[in-house]
């Protein structure tokens, strides 16, 4: 059983909702990332999504676009992410780490090399935003044989037939995109999300995690009541942006945001 499945099994046993923070690796500079990951775990993260910076993040709003730019200004690339995860694993062998990003950096590295090195570094799952399951027939088996979970997105526009296909390919958890838009977009409609999760539950036993639009304890708690996990990205990356000139201030700021969400979810 990989770390993601173990983590969800244990959360289920405790009746808890997964809290899944996202940060872009290398933002504001590569030397801070591992420290941030530990800080996130200390303040209640169950799984960490580590963003792979990309020059053309088409599905992201301005907040994560700028995070990518800061990370790339320091030359952050996939091989550095592997080093970061390896470093993180020195002291944390339990918290699952999921890489999230776009296909081109992986394509350029080569699928085989990517899958082997990611797994060897201690990565547990991979979510490639611009790779739907239909295009995953080459990388999918390589990830599977390396023990990496292939995590896919489901959107409000996903038809039931497509959802069935995605559920058939998905591993680890399903990432439900709560709204039509880019990351960091406007507020989400919890009732609408609830209605859309319902048919998915009939299609799969995979945990359903909801992202996009979760900004504070209140929204986290509202979504937490209907989902198995909540993903928070831009709200954290905003804190990193604010502290970019004084990096020492960032970890406490991240902890404050995440702790509030943890308390709200557990209340």
């Amino acid at each position, binding site marked *: 059983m990989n770390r993601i499945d173990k983590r969800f099994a244990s959360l289920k046993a405790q009746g808890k909702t997964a809290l899944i923070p996202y940060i872009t690796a290398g933002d504001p500079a590569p030397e801070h990332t591992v420290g941030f990951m530990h800080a996130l775990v200390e303040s209640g993260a169950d799984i960490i999504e580590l963003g792979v910076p990309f020059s053309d993040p088409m599905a992201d709003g301005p907040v994560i676009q700028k995070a990518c730019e800061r990370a790339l200004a320091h030359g952050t690339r996939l091989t550095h992410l592997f080093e970061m995860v390896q470093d993180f694993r020195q002291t944390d062998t339990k918290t699952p780490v999921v890489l999230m990003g776009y296909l*081109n950096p992986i394509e350029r590295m080569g699928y085989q090399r990517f899958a082997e090195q990611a797994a060897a570094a201690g990565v547990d799952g991979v979510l490639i935003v611009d790779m739907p399951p239909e295009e995953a027939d080459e990388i999918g088996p390589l990830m599977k044989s390396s023990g990496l979970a292939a995590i896919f997105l489901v959107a409000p526009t996903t038809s039931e037939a497509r959802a069935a296909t995605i559920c058939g390919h998905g591993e680890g958890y399903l990432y439900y995109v709560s709204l039509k838009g880019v990351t960091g977009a406007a507020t989400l409609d919890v009732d609408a999300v609830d209605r859309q999760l319902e048919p998915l539950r009939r299609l799969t036993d995979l945990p359903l995690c909801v992202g996009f639009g979760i900004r504070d304890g209140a929204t986290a708690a509202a979504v937490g009541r209907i989902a198995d996990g909540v993903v928070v990205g831009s709200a954290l990356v905003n804190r990193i942006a604010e502290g970019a000139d004084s990096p020492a201030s960032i970890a406490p700021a991240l902890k404050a945001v995440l702790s509030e969400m943890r308390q709200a979810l557990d209340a």
Partner: protein
Amino acid sequence: MTKFSDLTRLPDARGHFGPYGGRFVSETLSFALEDLEKTYMALRDDPDFQAEFDYDLAHYVGRPSPLYHAERWSKQLGGAQIWLKREDLNHTGAHKVNNTIGQALLAKKGGKPRVIAETGAGQHGVATATVAARLGLKCEIYMGAEDVERQKLNVYRMHLLGAKVIPVESGSRTLKDAMNEALRDWVTNVDDTFYIIGTVAGPHPYPMLVRDFNAVVGREARRQSLEQIGRLPDALIACVGGGSNAMGLFYPFVEDDEVKMYGVEAGGDGVETGRHAAPLTANAPQGVLHGNRTYLMSDEGGQIADTHSISAGLDYPGVGPEHALWKDVGRVEYVAANDDKVLEAFRELTRMEGIMPALESAHAIAHAKVLAPTMRPDQHIIVNLSGRGDKDILTVARIDGVHF
């Protein structure tokens, strides 16, 4: 080796051209693309739809465009006869309108009240704003901030046509960034918005449908060649950014093995300097951007490279997936023309024939200058004059040190 006759049966059901193409998009857009594919596949063989499209091309665009024998210039070059396919004479001044007419009809059939587009030189933006005005559709155009500066005339033209031009400040502030922003808009407004992509790139079915709408160029040229020359031409030349005008000219000739084809990319300062926009000529590695796999200029870490070209319309790091396959199977030879040669060609055609080409099209003209003298006077080359140069007058004036 792939038989060239097989090349007319692509893409496959999943939108692949051999290893290229595909539908690499975030999940939110999958539905809209499936929907567009369904709409288009139902209409492409529908006689009423084709009749409507043909009527607009004839009476609104002014087709067929002439095939003009550039006699004086041919004589000066002292080799093959050069024929110009005059897409510059279309309404709005470029081949781009063939595609926007077609896609606007699809938008109308799909009941979408709003259209968006990306644009580089502004020709596709103008062509989109034009058809939107005619159909009463709300229209917003994404354009890199650097291109807004380079192409002020087209920006104001779009404004006059009732479109809103949104300057894109992210990334390299050129065409690829405009496309990123258009995709972000589409993912947000997918319910009421049709995205009119301007080239044979993007996720399936765009490369196919943009090709089909532009193939009128090659069908006409083939017929005109038989009528005016009495046989098929020996060679075709067209510039390639995303590659829609080249695709439009080449596609109907793809099975004519005796017709050589040359796609001319933007050499910028020279392919060897790294400052160019010529992924095929430079043998850029395979990559995925904007929904399709293709030859793509990126660094070792997979970050998209900055591109350089005198022409905003060719300033793009990738290329249509069907061109990528045609390079691999050897159907088309891809070469590059550098900025200085392009400018020279721009001036030469203007002075010799009284025809001012767009800087994009001047890439094809520049290669004709190289190719024609290597051929005999009884041989024939068709060059796609994909757009007119009025929009580039300010750019050329600036290079000449003249400021208005």
